[in-house]
């Protein structure tokens, strides 16, 4: 069947898997390990996978529907159902991808209903949603899916009119005859189109003919949201369901010493107390004690009444203040060499100036507004899940191992996440609900409390980095030594890892600065807690280091930051980075122009700028601050981005606004602190996040581009903090090198 498209999709999917694995730092995972069954761990798994568009004409003998592929269900009345295979968490993917299908199909968007596909990667391809990869990997397949359907509908009309398809064209749910005013609606063509051969290589629309792509189509689900009708994982109700709450072992690797259930069982509505054993696989439960009740409140009250003692285990003395001091020491002395090029020593020997600085950042927790939640119903030979999740594929893998069931026996209903930011990629909370359901024999809705969400998460790596660079006589950067130490995500899969490995530190040798004489080193940084992907992942601290250090270099060279950045890019002669240099400079120029970078500002105000390339998108931000004593206010942010062809401008702008908001949170307040192995923070009182009074005006500017589209969920995060820090320096002369700027210690 259509080997060209199938071949394309296989190649595309492999590329996606490799990219994502690389992004997520998983390439070094031992494939024999637990994750071998998951979609993103290895490209080889896609062999034999039936591809999205290959479930061709699944019901071609059914005259009431036209299903040219897994994503498209056109009904006889003309209503069009489009499935979204990737997970929705607020980034708008369930509008963006279906709008691409609809555009190529010439569908009338008012006739489209979008439905979230259940977990089935054979049918929909990988559904593991992370690494800002959905648009990058699914844009072309979605266009092909829509274009195939359009051509089949056109062919069907041509057959009816006994003419050539060249004499017909599709427009907004109708096929028209070129030579007369005849038209047939899509609904009228369903039965005939279903019997048309699938085109070998459907022709795609020209950019100027796009109806939805590149515009600002409203989200398909906002109507449900404003009525309170959108159903999240925490909202699911199924017959016979009971509610559960849980308290976890506060330390990774710790165990339950004892639990007294007596008082918990006396709480009105409580029906059971269940010990949940730790599951020692990635994304398995930390281990805890759950209380089951006929409502969530009683379950939470029950947990409060448990008397639990833990054996904290080997990480029971983890203290982030002590650890951070150690990280800083580890980067201020020689560490493990990762990469080297040119002749750094002679560049340093000939330097006119040397500049060095150390930057640090603490742990972060995702804190989505919806804490971890799912419903799981375990039966003898099958299991059904309703989960707020970023990765149904991983739920199937983990539950398959835990329950001893085939993955196909685990049905996953993918619910929209009430925020996720990387947290809901890991399905420990789903596996716990499965454990409780199995123990009590009813469907279980497990909703974590905010405190458990804060105290037993998968944390963004804390980090320290030391950069030392030389400036030559002309003020060019001639050498760059970059040492970094952070517990890497790789430790989730191999806890014996002591240093962030080469693939997690490759940013330094691959950075578009392309410094000719360079050395990168990785410092000792074992993990004492679960480390996980957090929106933008390592790009947060790379952005911090590169963005602030460029400002410090500019000062030493006696030029402004924009001049310094352009000077560095212009010195990069690596032909393989020509595009990265060009596009980085273009977004910088746009942000500078729109913000009026360099203009004179009143006393106590500053305008900082930074640029970062991550997840294959380019974002520059100019941040305008006004000092208020030691505190500051972000007045305005101009963000310029190049993500290739934009799918949805309003959605893209929303992602930038979100990145600024989350950027302010993590720059100003957010930090998870550990003492004696456990997280100190618990709720929004001691893990404060940004509120409405801190929100600046965000202005998003696009580079018009025909380049292949790339994602935007994460790329806006990296440039914010350095641009802010540079602005504060300009406004006040105070140079911050550690995040958060205003640590909130309890």
């Amino acid at each position, binding site marked *: 069947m259509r080997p060209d498209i199938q071949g394309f999709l296989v190649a595309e999917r492999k590329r996606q898997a490799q990219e994502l694995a690389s992004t997520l730092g998983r390439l070094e995972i031992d494939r024999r390990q637990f994750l071998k069954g998951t979609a993103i761990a290895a490209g080889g798994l896609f062999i034999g996978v039936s591809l999205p568009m290959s479930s061709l004409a699944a019901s071609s003998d059914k005259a009431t529907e036209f299903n040219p592929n897994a994503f498209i269900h056109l009904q006889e009345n003309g209503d069009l159902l489009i499935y979204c295979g990737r997970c929705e*968490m*607020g*980034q*708008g993917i369930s509008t963006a991808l279906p709008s691409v299908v609809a555009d190529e199909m010439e569908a009338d968007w008012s006739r489209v209903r979008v439905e979230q596909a259940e977990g089935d990667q054979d049918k929909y391809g990988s559904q593991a949603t992370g690494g800002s990869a959905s648009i990058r990997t699914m844009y072309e397949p979605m266009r092909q899916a829509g274009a195939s359907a359009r051509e089949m509908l056109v062919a069907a009309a041509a057959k009816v009119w006994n003419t050539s398809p060249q004499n017909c064209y599709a427009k907004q749910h109708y096929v028209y005859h070129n030579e007369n005013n005849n038209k047939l609606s899509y609904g009228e063509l369903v039965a005939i189109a279903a019997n048309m051969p699938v085109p070998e290589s459907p022709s795609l629309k020209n950019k100027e003919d796009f109806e939805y792509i590149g515009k*600002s189509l*409203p*989200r398909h*689900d*906002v*109507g449900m*949201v*404003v*009525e*309170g*009708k*959108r159903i*999240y994982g*925490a*909202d699911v*109700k199924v017959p016979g369901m009971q*509610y559960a709450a849980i308290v976890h072992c506060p330390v990774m690797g710790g165990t339950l010493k004892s639990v007294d259930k007596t008082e918990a069982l006396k709480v*009105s*509505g409580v029906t059971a107390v269940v010990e949940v054993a730790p599951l020692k696989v990635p994304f398995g439960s930390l281990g805890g004690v759950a209380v089951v009740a*006929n*409502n*969530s*409140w*009683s379950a939470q009250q029950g947990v409060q009444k448990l008397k639990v003692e833990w054996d904290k285990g080997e990480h029971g003395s983890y203290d982030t203040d002590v650890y951070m001091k150690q990280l800083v020491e580890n980067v201020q002395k020689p560490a493990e060499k990762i990469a080297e090029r040119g002749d750094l020593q002679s560049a340093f020997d000939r330097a006119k100036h040397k500049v060095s600085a150390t930057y640090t950042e603490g742990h972060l927790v995702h*804190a*989505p*507004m*919806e*804490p971890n939640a799912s419903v799981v119903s375990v039966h003898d030979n099958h299991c059904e899940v309703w989960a707020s999740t970023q990765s149904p594929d991983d739920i199937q893998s983990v539950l398959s191992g835990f329950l001893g069931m085939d993955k196909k026996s685990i049905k996953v209903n993918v619910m*929209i*996440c*009430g*925020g*996720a930011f990387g947290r809901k990629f890991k399905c420990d909370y789903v596996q716990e609900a499965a454990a409780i359901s199995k123990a009590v024999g009813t469907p279980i809705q497990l*909703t974590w*409390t*905010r405190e458990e969400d804060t105290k037993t998460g998968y944390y963004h790596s804390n980090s320290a980095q030391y950069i030392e660079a030389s400036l030559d006589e002309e003020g060019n950067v001639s050498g760059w030594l970059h040492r970094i130490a952070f517990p890497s995500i790789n430790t989730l899969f191999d806890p014996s890892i002591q240093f962030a490995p080469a693939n997690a530190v490759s940013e330094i040798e691959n950075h578009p600065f392309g410094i000719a004489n360079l050395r990168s080193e990785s410092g000792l940084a074992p993990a004492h807690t679960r480390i996980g992907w957090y929106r933008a992942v390592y790009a947060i601290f790379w952005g911090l280091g590169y963005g602030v250090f460029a400002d410090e270099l500019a000062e030493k060279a006696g030029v402004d930051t924009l001049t310094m950045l352009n000077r560095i890019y212009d010195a990069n002669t690596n032909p393989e980075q020509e595009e990265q240099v060009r596009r980085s400079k273009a977004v910088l120029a746009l942000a500078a122009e729109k913000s009026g970078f360099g203009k004179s500002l009143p006393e106590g105000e500053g305008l900082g700028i930074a640029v970062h390339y991550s997840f294959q998108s380019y974002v520059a931000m100019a941040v305008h601050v006004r000092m208020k004593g030691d505190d500051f206010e972000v007045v305005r942010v101009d963000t310029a981005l190049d993500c290739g062809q934009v799918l949805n401008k*309003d959605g893209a702008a*929303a992602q930038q*606004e*979100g*990145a*600024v*908001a*989350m950027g302010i949170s993590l720059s100003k307040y957010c930090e998870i602190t550990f003492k004696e192995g456990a997280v100190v923070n618990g*709720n*929004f*009182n001691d893990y404060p*996040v*940004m*509120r*409405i*009074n801190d*929100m*600046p005006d*965000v202005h998003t500017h696009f580079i018009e581009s025909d380049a292949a589209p790339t994602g935007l969920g994460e790329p806006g995060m990296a440039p914010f903090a350095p641009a802010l820090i540079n602005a504060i320096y300009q406004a006040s002369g105070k140079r911050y090198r550690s995040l958060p700027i205003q640590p909130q210690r309890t």
Partner: protein
Amino acid sequence: MSKTITINNKSYDIDVPEDMPLLWFLRDRLEFTGTKFGCGKALCGACTVHVDGQATRSCVMPVGALAGRSITTIEGLSDNADHPLQKAWLEVGVPQCGYCQAGQIMNAASLLATNASPSEKEIETAMQGNICRCGTYQRIKQAINIAADELAKEV
């Protein structure tokens, strides 16, 4: 005779322990799930409903203390999703994940009921208790202004 509570103009028996917060009576007993659980400590505003028209954090309000009171949830804010705030929310395209938005809208509705044309500062002060982690604040402000203008026209 058991105590009753009015929710979206309909009377219900309070047939749960009286110390159960209104949030869980709504979500788990009556299955009105539009009102969300975010923090359990009145820190985030996701659970905001109206008690006799006044924005209230339902996660810390014992249902037993509300006997005889009238509660409005997002499901009862308007008959046809046509409250000026709901319309403005759609016009601006406020929600991202949407989880906090019912609380945001209910809080904003309470604000506009007492102050029909709030200044930016007044909006910020009134809305400070409602967290949005997706960062839709800029659009929330914009939508409240549009709704306020709409209400001004209606008068």
